[in-house]
């Protein structure tokens, strides 16, 4: 019988990797620190660029994984230690029922990402005003039907924490442009009376159908895109004043808003450096796991036998995470035969 593969993280990349290993005759041990699978994907309402039911997709994928014989799922489990080499790792797992030692041939790290809490951005009144929310909170509001009613004005702010040397990260989080467009469309669908304004620096729609998706938001849903980074959000009575520059005109502008949504950056998963220390693999300057070779070996970590999948390596969209999960699974299978 084939040796086991340990998969760290039960997000969409981890689930995919587990499925592929099991479907190809391997055995996967999927550990997740939370009580349920799905990761960040499970927190979404819709996917983009096709507005499909995210919860449905995740539930379907989790069900498939649970039904496969070769997958053992351990929720609320963390990795405690890891010894050995490619083909023969001894890992110690901290499960709710105590410690458990396992022999595995390969490890797939699919630790996902974390949405940055924009607490450093006090100029955006985040944390002070209940009307300033992050995109993740907006998802929740949308799912619970708490979106603003009537002729409300909603401002979406791009690049909160991304492309910011002073307070955030220098990299581009890649998906914020698209998901903000998704949120604007969700708002317009739920409440056509509402006005949506999106403040952007550049629109980075790097994926199939993404550009068309954002153009659709502008053209079909009449979402107003203004080029310029928001400088300040000021509380004024029960409204918010959003100050920015419309840099295509060169004038400072002010929008009176009822809700401000901050597209916060994707940051490395919490505790990524500690996990890297346990596994003995390298991270980059931000805390994302470093690939052995960025172009043709995107899923190899700096250590033989440990593979990377999904957004724990760099900000990426769902399709890329799924693809990377599959690739990591196939690499792991080579070692477990």
């Amino acid at each position: 019988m084939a040796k086991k593969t340990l998969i760290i993280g039960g997000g969409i990349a981890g689930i995919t990797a587990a499925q592929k290993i099991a479907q190809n005759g391997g055995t996967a041990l999927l550990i997740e620190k939370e009580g349920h699978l799905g990761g960040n994907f499970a927190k979404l309402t819709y996917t983009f660029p096709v507005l499909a039911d995210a919860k449905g997709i995740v539930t379907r994928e989790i069900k498939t994984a649970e039904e496969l014989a070769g997958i053992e799922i351990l929720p609320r489990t963390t990795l405690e230690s890891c010894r050995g080499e490619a083909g023969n790792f001894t890992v110690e797992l901290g499960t709710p029922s105590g410690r458990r030692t396992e022999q595995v041939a390969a490890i797939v790290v699919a630790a996902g990402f974390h949405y940055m809490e924009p607490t450093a951005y006090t100029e955006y009144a985040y944390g002070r005003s209940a009307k300033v929310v992050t995109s993740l909170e907006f998802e929740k509001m949308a799912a619970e039907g708490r979106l603003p009613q009537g002729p409300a004005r909603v401002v979406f702010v791009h690049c909160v924490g991304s492309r910011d040397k002073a307070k955030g990260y220098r990299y581009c989080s890649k998906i914020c442009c698209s998901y903000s467009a998704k949120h604007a469309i969700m708002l317009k669908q739920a409440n056509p009376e509402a006005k949506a304004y999106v403040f952007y620096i550049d629109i980075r729609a790097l994926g199939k159908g993404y550009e068309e998706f954002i153009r659709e938001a502008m053209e079909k849903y009449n979402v107003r895109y203004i080029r310029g980074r928001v400088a300040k959000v000021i509380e004024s009575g029960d409204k918010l004043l959003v100050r920015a520059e419309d840099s295509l005109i060169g004038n400072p502008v002010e929008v009176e808003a009822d809700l401000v949504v901050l597209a916060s950056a994707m940051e490395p998963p919490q505790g990524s450096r500690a996990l890297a220390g346990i596994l003995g693999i390298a991270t980059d300057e931000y805390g994302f796991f470093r690939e052995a070779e960025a172009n043709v070996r995107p899923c190899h970590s700096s250590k033989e036998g440990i593979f990377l999948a999904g957004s724990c390596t760099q900000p990426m969209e769902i399709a890329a995470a799924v693809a990377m999960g599959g690739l990591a699974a196939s690499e792991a299978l080579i070692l477990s035969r």
Partner: protein
Amino acid sequence: MRLKIDEDGIRTMVEQSIGKSLTSCLQCSKCGGGCVHSEEFDLTPRQVVESLLDCQDGKVLDSRMIWLCGRSCSACQAVCPVGLPLNEIMAVLREEAGRRGIEPKYEKPSMIYYKFEHCAKHQEEGEASESSTGRETQPA
């Protein structure tokens, strides 16, 4: 001066007249870059569209740009990646400005397109200098 973005302006009227939505503008600046009047712009054509979307009606109607645009020149429309009929937009805006009693800011909207030497303005002002400096201004 800080602009306040409004919602109701002549944008709808312009969109109805040209039969196209202004939101399709990519803000790529191709229109202004190739215009023969680029030396005299106060607003570039792209900024006219942007200002219309922001409903800064007064600013657009007061601009010189809408009077600069040639009536039968469609150079910008020809290069526009989304095919916005900019000269039609300007014509609509000129009409609207006339209706509101705004004086034309530019005396002669140029009649013809493209080539510098055919441009009405250059025929009057530029001939002397053109002959003295050779034909450097002629486009390739």
